[in-house]
Structures are given as structure tokens and as C-alpha cells.
């Protein structure tokens, strides 16, 4: 009963409460989110392909035994430079990730449902310009704001086949909305201010499949595949865009040379260039296929019996899919984190600090990001 209550709380978090925003969120279909938990974030995403608390590989769900419930809270502090513009002191808090998973009875099957960020479309931009109206130049000040994202709602089923193989499959419903507001003020007061708001909704579906092989007690390998349909954007019920979503191929390796030391790495490739036609048509942006590589080391932890507080460090490199130029933006992340168990080891609080560097396409962005996650095993 208590587990059901926790489940209800976890899933009551709105699906639109998603990842942090970025100066790159305004480009193309948005900034791709990272469907990983706080643990994986601390490891640069290196363990994502094996992590049941991340939504990368559905085979990882097979690791769930008892009921698990988890949710993340993320705070980002951001600054950027783009061309002549710069901003700092930007901050935002989000609940980007939550899940609940459990083994189904005494079967080798495990089930997990949850949501993760897919594409972030949050921005709030002011700009100035001069337009010629009725033969006269008129200064204007614009504010374009969009708050929201599309979230990846996943239902995953994992199966243990013996002690060395886990397989899994998942269905994904990508859904979300953004509330857009536009405001234009004119320096000439005879031109009235324009204010408008609209609701954009996003809908798509997909599936994923994966496997994790335990080669030995010190080596595990993982692979997954994901494919999604086009994501349809409607504004106030009027279809306005149809963006091809990428195929994602992921591979991972996990080495544990010592029970208290684990190294993991995950590599993903996404065919975002499929979206070139649609994002080029709607925004003049360029779309690129992207590579993402994350790697991390984890020392200790109560599971390893070495220390109560694991030390996690990681680094991640990712290419961003959309750019206003032919220059493909990149992202480097350096992360560190730890965790603490309490409530008779039924609760795990994790924390990760990330320093994110994004460059390319004419912009440069720096982010400090703090993620806190709570896992409960009721």
C-alpha cells in the first residue's frame, strides 16, 4: 500500500516539468534531454546503458527486484554568450526524471514506467530591432518565451535469461507541451503592443530494445536500439511541424576490476540529420547526426562494502544536433557525486554536481548543475 502511495506521488509530477533550458533550446526541435538518473549523471552517463534507474536501455529494467521508486530534482545556474549578446545569473529548477519499477511477482520479468526529458523547448528571449512601418523606422522590443518540453513516457519490460543475459523492450510515448508567449512593444506609442500566447503540443511514439550481457563478474556489455516516429507539433490544435526523430544506437561497457572500483562507458549515436528537412524549413537550422560518449569511475559505496559514501566522477562528450550555422555545437560535462543510504537502507539520496561547457554554432554556454535524486525501496 505504501508503495502504491509512493508510486502515485512519483507519477503525479507533470510530464512537462523537464530538463534545464539552454541557449540551444531555441534551435531546431529543441535541446535533447538526458534520460538518466543522478547516479549515471555523476558518472558522465557512462553507466547509463546498465542503469535500471536510467531510461536508456530497457534491458536494465530486468535488474529491478523489489519495488523501486525514484525521482530527480535539478537546479541549473547558467551563463552564455551568443554573438553580441550575453547573459549570466540565469537559473532554473526542474524535476526532469522519475520512475517506478519492480519485478513482476516471482517471474523473471520486471516492469518499469517513468518519464524522462526528450526535447527541451524552454527559453525566454528579449531582443531589440528596428522595423520600417509606414515609411518610418520604428524601434521595437520583443520578448519570446516558451516554457515546457516534450517528455518521454516509457513503459519497459525486462527479462532475465539466466545469470548472464538480460533483455528488454520498451514502448515510448513522447508527449508534452510548451506555452509560448510573444510580446512586442513599439517605441512609437501609436503602434499598440502585441501580446499573444499559444499552446504548442508535441506527440510521437517509439520503441526500444536492448540487451545486457554479463561476460564475467568483472565485465558486462550492453547494447540497445531505439526508433521513434516523427514528432508532430500542433499550435492551438493546428499542425505546424513534423520533425523526424532519430534512431538511437547505444553500446556500453562496465568493468569492475575490484568490488570497490567500477569503470563504465556508454556510447550513443543518433541520426538527428533525419530532421534536417523539417528544422531547416522551419528555422533555417542545420541538423547533424550526433555522437555521445560518457565515462565514469565509481569508488566504494555500501554495495561494495568499501565505504558508506561512494565517490563518483565522470566526463562526458556530446554533440548537439541543431545549429544555426554549419558549425556543430558540442558539449563537455565534468561531473562528481555521491550518495547516502538511510531509513534502514530503504532510501537512497544521491547528489551530483556537473559543470557543463557548450560551444559552437556561434554561442558559448556554461552551466553549473546540481542534481539530487531520491530512490525509495518501500
Amino acid at each position, binding site marked *: 500500500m505504501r508503495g502504491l502511495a509512493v508510486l502515485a506521488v512519483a507519477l503525479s509530477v507533470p510530464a512537462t516539468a523537464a530538463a534545464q533550458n539552454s541557449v540551444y533550446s531555441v534551435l531546431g526541435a529543441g535541446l535533447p534531454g538526458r534520460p538518466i538518473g543522478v547516479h549515471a549523471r555523476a558518472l558522465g552517463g557512462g553507466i547509463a546503458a546498465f542503469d535500471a534507474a536510467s531510461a536508456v536501455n530497457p534491458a536494465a529494467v530486468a535488474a529491478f527486484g523489489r519495488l523501486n521508486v525514484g525521482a530527480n*530534482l535539478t537546479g541549473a545556474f547558467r551563463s552564455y554568450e551568443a554573438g553580441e549578446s550575453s547573459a549570466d545569473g540565469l537559473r532554473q529548477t526542474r524535476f526532469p526524471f522519475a520512475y517506478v519499477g519492480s519485478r513482476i511477482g516471482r517471474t523473471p520479468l520486471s516492469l518499469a514506467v517513468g518519464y524522462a526529458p526528450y526535447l527541451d523547448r524552454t527559453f525566454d528571449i528579449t*531582443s531589440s530591432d528596428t522595423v520600417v512601418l509606414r515609411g518610418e523606422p520604428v524601434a521595437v522590443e520583443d520578448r*519570446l518565451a516558451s516554457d515546457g518540453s516534450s517528455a518521454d513516457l516509457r513503459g519497459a519490460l525486462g527479462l532475465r535469461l539466466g545469470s548472464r543475459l538480460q533483455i528488454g523492450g520498451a514502448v515510448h510515448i513522447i508527449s508534452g507541451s510548451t506555452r509560448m508567449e510573444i510580446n*512586442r512593444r513599439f517605441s512609437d506609442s501609436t503602434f499598440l503592443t502585441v501580446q499573444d500566447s499559444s499552446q504548442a503540443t508535441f506527440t510521437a511514439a517509439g520503441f526500444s530494445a536492448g540487451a545486457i550481457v554479463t561476460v564475467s563478474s568483472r565485465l558486462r556489455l550492453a547494447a540497445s536500439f531505439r526508433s521513434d516516429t516523427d514528432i508532430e507539433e500542433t499550435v*492551438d490544435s493546428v499542425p505546424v511541424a513534423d520533425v523526424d526523430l532519430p534512431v538511437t544506437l547505444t553500446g556500453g561497457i562496465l568493468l569492475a576490476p575490484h568490488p570497490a572500483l567500477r569503470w563504465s562507458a556508454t556510447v550513443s549515436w543518433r541520426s538527428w540529420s533525419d530532421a534536417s528537412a523539417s528544422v531547416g524549413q522551419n528555422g533555417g537550422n542545420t541538423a547533424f547526426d550526433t555522437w555521445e560518449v560518457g565515462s565514469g569511475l565509481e569508488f566504494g559505496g555500501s554495495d561494495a562494502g568499501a565505504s558508506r559514501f561512494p565517490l563518483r566522477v565522470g566526463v562526458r562528450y556530446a554533440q548537439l544536433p541543431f545549429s544555426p550555422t554549419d558549425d556543430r555545437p558540442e558539449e563537455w560535462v565534468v561531473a562528481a557525486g555521491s550518495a547516502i543510504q538511510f531509513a534502514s537502507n530503504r532510501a537512497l539520496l544521491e547528489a551530483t554536481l556537473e559543470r557543463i561547457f557548450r560551444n559552437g554554432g556561434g*554561442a558559448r554556454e556554461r552551466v553549473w548543475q546540481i542534481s539530487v535524486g531520491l530512490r525509495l525501496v518501500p
Partner: protein
Amino acid sequence: MGRRFVWLSLLLAALAGCSERLTAPGECPEFCPPTLIDIVDTVITGAIVRDSSYRGYVQARGASALQIARQADTILSRAVLRYFRFPDSLRAATADAELSAVVSVDSFRVRFTVERMTDVDGLELALYRLPIDMDSTTTLAEVAPFFDDSTLIATIPIPDTLTTDSITADTVAVMVLPAAFPTFAADTGVVAIGVAVRGAADAFMDLTSAQGAMSPVVTRFVTVDSLATGTEVERSDARQPLFDTFLFPPPPPPVGDVLLAGGAPSARSLLRIDLPAAIVDSSEMVRSTLIIVPSEATLGAPGDTFLLRAEALSADFGPKSPLLGSTIEGLVLGTTEVVAGTMDTIRIDVTHIMRPWRTDASLPRSFMIRVVPEGAGLGEVRVGSTREGSGPALHLTYVPLVGGGN
């Protein structure tokens, strides 16, 4: 354990409670959304359909002002006023229950409130004695002979400091002897006055009428035989006009099937608008201007300027359509000043009329064009109609809304 949990809770609370700050300058167009704010600036000539003019809303005798004018040494327009009857007895004291007979009339004071909108100096009002049998059927020809030196009863100099190019009202008055109204007794205490403007140049002046804020008044100063004390006391009483109007030669008839606004009796023009839904329903109006090109020189007193206004309707019942009422912005922006005797293009800002059409489908998509105040002057605009293929146009500046403004 408890202390640890408190610290963890505080950390979560600090993150969750962190205020957001998202607004930042954008680097457009590279890091801005594509064409979210597009602005269109266009002149549409065929948007006005089924335009009509109607006359008779406000008669000169019901207007708030009486316009008097002269042009080329002749009287162009003159005011005539018949006042309420003065009684032949008054109370000698306020507490008296009985009326006392008026023994003698000592003098009269004739007072007007003047609005002058001209820079011509040296003007004066000329007051003439008129027969008292005037009413709404009285014609210019019937009263014109009385605007003569033989019936002149007084002149009132108008201070040159009284206004220049803006509406400013002031009161002028003159004392006249009883001889000014030799038939006062025979006329049973009724006086009638004609008023014209005199000066060295073409000029005009507006007198506030009985329907205006400051009515013309004739004050009578008399001697009353006091019943209580048996002595004579001086008293006064005042009368406003029972009837007032201004008379002028009929203007030349309009040429062709044109739209009219102004004059006396006042005319209005009803313009119905037919715009594409993409503009009126799915766009935010930033500025809209009604462009009127007079088909002939605007009528009016020499040197006069008058106000032409476009107003929204609360319902479209044709000529009897009720006006929606002007907002404060409408008073400023929905009205424009027109110079008499010119053919300058007239532009009226109708943004505040058209902008609500998108969100309130019940509003008639029509304007009523009229001169304000109505019936109070000679000013009249004549504009080509759609039937003549030369109706007014609309200059629209609008922003198509995302999602069509649903």
C-alpha cells in the same frame, strides 16, 4: 540519522525553492525562434463595403453650439435666440409670499459664452433685435432683413487674448438699455436676439447654446414696488433661450453619390468593413488608420477646424445603430482635426475600434463617421463612396498570430 535527514531535506528544499530567472537577451536571428513575430504593413482599398450616409441626427437648434461666421464682408451664418418670457411681477424680497409689480425696466445684460478658434483679431459680436415669433420653421430669408444697423442693439468686443488655435471658452456680456427692446411690453416680456460676428477679415465664432454647458442668458434689471414697505426696490431676473439655432445658406449639393459627415442637420456615414479572416480574426492589430480622401473641398466656416471621429457600433442597425461609446484612447486616437476648405487626405486612427474585433465576434465590423460636436457648425466632409469606386481605404499594420490566434 534524524539530523542527517534534516540536512538532506534542507538541501532538497533549497533546490526546489530556488527562484527562476530565465529572461535573457537573444541573439537574433541565429538564436531566436523562426519568424514568431512577423509584421505586415499594408493599405487595403477594397475593405469597405456597403457604405451609406444619413442626415438628420442633430439639428442646429439642438446642437451644443451656435456657429456664426462671416466671409467676404457678408454674414455666412448667424445665430437667433428667443428667450423665455420675463414676468411682469417679481418678489420684492425673498421672503415675500406675494409678487410685486415691476414698476420699470432699468436695463438688460446679454451674456454669451464664446469659443473662438481663429487667430483673427478685432472681432466683435453684433446683437440685433429680432421679432419674437421665431421657431424651428423660421428661415434665413425671414430673419436676414433684421440683421441691419437699424435693429442693432449692441456690439460686444471680443478680446484678442481669447483663444487662438484651441478650444477655450470665455464669457462676454454687454449692458443694453430698455430702448433696445422697444416692443418688450407688447411682446409680453419676450426678447429675441440675432447674433453675427463682425470684423475686418473672414472669421467665425462658436456661441454655447442652451444645450451647451454655459447657456446664453439675458438678465433683466428692474424696479419693483415693494408691497411690504411701500418702497421701490431694485431686482433682477434672468432667462435662458427657449429656442436657439443658427441659420446659413444651404451648402452646395454634393456632386455624385458621396459619403457625408457633419453639417447641420448633422450627417453620418456608416462604413461596413469586410476583411479577410486572416487579418481580422487571426492577427493582432497594431495600428489601423482609416484613410479618407475628400471628393471636394471640406465645407466649413473660413479658418475653421473641426473634429471628425470614427466610432464603433454596439450593434449594426443601419442609420440608427447605437454607438459603442468612446474609450479614452478613442477620444485621442479615433478623432482627427479637419481644416475647412481643404482637400487634404484625412487619416483617422481606428486601431481601438478594430482591435477588439478579433476577440469579440459580436461586435459589428463597422464604423460610424461623424463630426463632433454634431450639428454645431458648418463643417462637413464629403468623400467618394464605394458606389463611385473611390471609397475610403484602410492602412493596416498587424501581426499574424501564432496558431492563427485561436
